[in-house]
């Protein structure tokens, strides 16, 4: 057993400062910082979601109804920036902060003070970004991709660039911390190929972050100097090239997509074996598939630019390289299905979200394959088909996995069981309305509706109305999630056992629920049978 180094229940709050400011603002505890990340992410999820509600309200009917076109463009831009950098990424960092030390038997993150700084940069970054909405000239409205020269219009460029720099610094510090923790802080006996898949997925994601966030920093720095210091990196009149920005941006941007999905793969790879009561099928194949996807993510960036006028050889290379990603992704999907095959499955809320992830993420993957075909992409490019594709990947993919992970570990965090009834209500409402929201957007795109427009041809009216109704109800459904969390934290009477789920394996289930403030101060003695992957064959 691995409990030797954990505290008894009566020591649960040993070391937790009683002063609110000291505990939360000056925290160096991985669990508290993880909680801060998760709460921040939830807040950003609702702010970004409210922008999405504005977009869907405007698109409810053809014609301009509620907002001016410039404000609409601000909403599409800010929705993406807030959801990507404020909601999805911090949620994964929060889950990683909370769970990685617990899963590898480490007492904390390797660099606890840097961990605090990584988090506390974020509120300032987003305050800076969101404050642009109140500037006299308005906020950024050129899309989250910030293509020049469009993005250089207006006076909010400096705010946007500094906000992106802050987010980048936070992400890089977080990634270095996670790599340092996983490589150096594992308990003796926790070999690399015995680590949970979630830990592996985060290790590989952290490498991606360190490789590409500085590229984004470089790109936005050049935007800033083009705007305010007279350089011409992307200004054709001065000898620069606007397409260069697109290359640099997407060299960051495509791996960024995988930064948002690889930890989701890790989460689902933890949840499915637990509720299928079987070890994951093909553990090593899962790890190598994640690594392969990460490698391939560096050589596919120009598939976002098929319509820009690439040389034919480039189009063919990027098309085939992109399609190659389907191979390791297919390995993962088949391994999840094989894990469930013949298992003693039960369908608690985390498992429901995980199964929905597998099915709906695969739909997003298939539409991705359609977009990877260069000749077909000329038709799909910048249409609502693209919007449908990446929302299937990011909402029913990344966000569903985050929700699944939250339900999975919530009893471990709070010490109380959440309401399974309301969890399931949340699931069924989410899964129905998210499809009503995004599935019709495939048809809109195929019929030719462009993205990022506040008004459209009446031919698109019906599907837009259906999509908007789905959007409002999907948004409202997330209030159930907040209710379930509040209930579990403050009101639930049902105590969670140490091993919350019957089929759960791994070190995190050997500590009490709620997890004590300090865990594994002495490295645990690890026995293979305690680990999910303790008996991996060479």
């Amino acid at each position, binding site marked *: 057993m691995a409990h030797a180094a954990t505290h008894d229940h009566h020591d649960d709050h040993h070391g937790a400062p009683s002063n609110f400011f000291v505990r939360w603002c000056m925290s160096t505890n991985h669990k508290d910082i993880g909680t801060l990340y998760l709460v921040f992410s939830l807040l950003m999820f609702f702010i970004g979601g409210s922008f999405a509600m504005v977009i869907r309200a405007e698109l409810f009917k053809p014609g301009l109804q509620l907002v001016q076109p410039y404000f609409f463009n601000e909403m599409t831009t800010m929705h993406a920036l807030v959801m990507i950098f404020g909601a999805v990424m911090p949620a994964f960092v929060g889950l990683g902060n909370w769970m990685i030390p617990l899963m590898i038997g480490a007492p904390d993150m*390797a660099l606890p003070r840097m961990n605090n700084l990584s988090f506390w940069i974020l509120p300032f970054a987003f305050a800076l970004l969101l404050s642009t909405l109140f500037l006299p000239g308005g906020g950024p409205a050129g899309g989250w991709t910030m293509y020049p020269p469009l993005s250089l219009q207006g006076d909010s460029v400096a705010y946007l660039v500094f906000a992106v720099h802050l987010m980048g610094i936070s992400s890089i510090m977080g990634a270095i911390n996670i790599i340092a923790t996983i490589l150096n802080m594992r308990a003796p006996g926790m070999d690399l190929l015995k680590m949970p898949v979630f830990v592996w997925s985060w290790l590989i994601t952290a490498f991606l972050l*360190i490789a590409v966030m500085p590229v984004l920093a*470089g790109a936005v720095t050049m935007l800033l100097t083009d705007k305010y210091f007279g350089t011409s990196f992307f200004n054709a009149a001065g000898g620069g090239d606007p397409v260069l920005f697109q290359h*640099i941006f997407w060299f960051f941007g495509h791996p960024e997509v995988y930064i948002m999905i690889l930890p989701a793969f890790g989460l689902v790879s933890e949840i499915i074996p637990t509720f299928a009561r079987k070890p994951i099928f093909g553990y090593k194949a899962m790890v190598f598939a994640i690594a392969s996807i990460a490698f391939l993510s560096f050589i596919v960036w120009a598939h976002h630019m098929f319509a820009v006028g690439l040389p034919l050889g480039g189009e063919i290379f990027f098309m085939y390289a992109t399609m190659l990603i389907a191979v390791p992704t297919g390995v993962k999907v088949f391994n999840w299905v094989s894990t469930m095959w013949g298992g003693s499955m039960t369908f608690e809320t985390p498992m429901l979200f995980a199964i929905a992830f597998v099915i709906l993420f695969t739909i997003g993957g298939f539409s991705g394959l359609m977009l990877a075909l260069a000749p077909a992409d000329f038709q799909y490019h910048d249409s609502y088909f693209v919007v449908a594709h990446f929302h299937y990947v990011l909402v029913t993919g990344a966000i569903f996995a985050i929700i699944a992970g939250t339900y999975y570990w919530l009893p471990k965090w709070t010490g109380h069981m959440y309401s399974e009834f309301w969890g399931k209500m949340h699931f069924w409402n989410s899964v129905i309305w998210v499809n009503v929201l995004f599935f019709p957007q495939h048809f809109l795109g195929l019929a030719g509706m462009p993205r990022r427009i506040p008004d459209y041809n009446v031919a698109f009216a019906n599907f837009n109305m259906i999509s908007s109704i789905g959007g409002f109800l999907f948004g409202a459904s997330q209030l159930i999630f907040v209710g379930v969390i509040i209930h579990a934290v403050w009101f639930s009477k049902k105590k969670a056992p140490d091993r919350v789920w019957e089929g759960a394996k791994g070190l995190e289930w050997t500590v009490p629920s709620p997890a004590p403030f300090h865990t594994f101060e002495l490295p645990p003695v690890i026995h293979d049978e305690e680990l999910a992957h303790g008996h991996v064959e060479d």
Partner: protein
Amino acid sequence: MNQSKATIEEVRKKGVRRTVTVFGAIAIGIFLLSLLQGLKYS
């Protein structure tokens, strides 16, 4: 037990310092490289 804990912490500290130096340098290097790419192609 305390001695082994101290040894483990020392090994961890060294490893963490090395990891931070290497990956911090990589991040700064990539940032500078991306600016150089901008200079080269514009």
